[in-house]
């Protein structure tokens, strides 16, 4: 019985792996397109693409990082913070995300500083 359950679990995992890979591939296409349009200054379109990417693959840290940058550029600092924090939760050791987040925090702190 235990062996049968293990075999079943293995089969499920094997079946799910290509699905996850597909999701990442689809999300990656959205992320790449988002980068292209952001580089041309089309930030709203970039936000749409990166939001799609995070819906398709919620574990894609790069998509959350890019989304955070776009929110920051649009002045939506609370959404930017949430997206950076999600990206760091997914990839806590990513130095590039950490650097972006530190720079964001400097600006965010400046806006909230001394308001008591």
């Amino acid at each position, binding site marked *: 019985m235990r062996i049968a359950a293990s075999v079943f679990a293995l089969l499920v995992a094997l079946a799910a792996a290509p699905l996850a890979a597909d999701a990442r591939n689809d999300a990656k296409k959205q992320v790449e397109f988002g980068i292209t349009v952001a580089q041309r200054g089309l930030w709203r379109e970039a936000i749409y693409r990166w939001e799609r990417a995070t819906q398709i693959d919620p574990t894609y840290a790069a998509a959350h990082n890019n989304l955070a*940058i776009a929110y*920051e550029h649009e002045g939506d600092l609370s959404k930017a913070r949430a997206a950076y924090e999600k990206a760091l939760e997914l990839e806590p050791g990513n130095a*590039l995300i*950490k650097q972006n987040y530190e720079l964001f925090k400097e600006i965010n702190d400046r806006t909230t500083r001394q*308001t008591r």
Partner: protein
Amino acid sequence: MIARRVRLVSSVAAVVLATACTNSFEIPIETPIRPKLDVGAFQRVLVAGFIAGGSEDVDGNLETTRLLRSQLRSKSELRVIDSDVLPLMDVATEGRNADSGGAQAAAPAPIKEQKDLEAYEHVFANVEYWKRIGEEYQQPLIVTGTVMFTPLQRNQIVQQEREVYDSFGRRRVVPVRTYMERKGFSLDGRFIFIDGRSGATLHSESFGEQILYNANQTTPALSSYFELMDRLIPSFLSTLSSQKIKGTRILLQ
């Protein structure tokens, strides 16, 4: 602040390494910072004056009023009203005497410490007074508040660099921690923004900055005052007008 800089520098080094192995793209961004206060209803601003105290070398009321007016003239879309600086300490004292029956007309006591300000702060809540000032100047946004510029003296451990020579005559610079006396100033207070139409307070913002120098260094009080105000001005301006902060970020694939 220094710790944050050190962290940033070390993370930049890590980033250089990481960039080499990741698909990443540097992109310039401009973060718009919305003003903390919606001043759309006002065309004019009156920096009325401040309840000021502390060092006698700097007139905190006059200098703060002058500095804020000149900053607003160049960095805000509001028209700055030129008028005499209001003697708010006298106004507060008169108000208090009137409340207590108006028997004695006591002169305002000098403000030496933060707690001395409490005796005057009621003037900011005097809606009728500010409404009258507002009517006089065609209902502008009114900026007022408190300013305490006080001398500071502290003994603290300071890290300095010292040259040393080894037995071969080679020069080295080593950090040395010494306990020394330092002197400087602190600037504390509050900016208060009042609606000239109703006399009501719209927003208030406290601040506090310090600067310390080696005890043997002579720095005029006025230049320290401007150095400290320089740090506060961006936050003050961001209350009234939007700003864009330029920077770069790394997009990831």
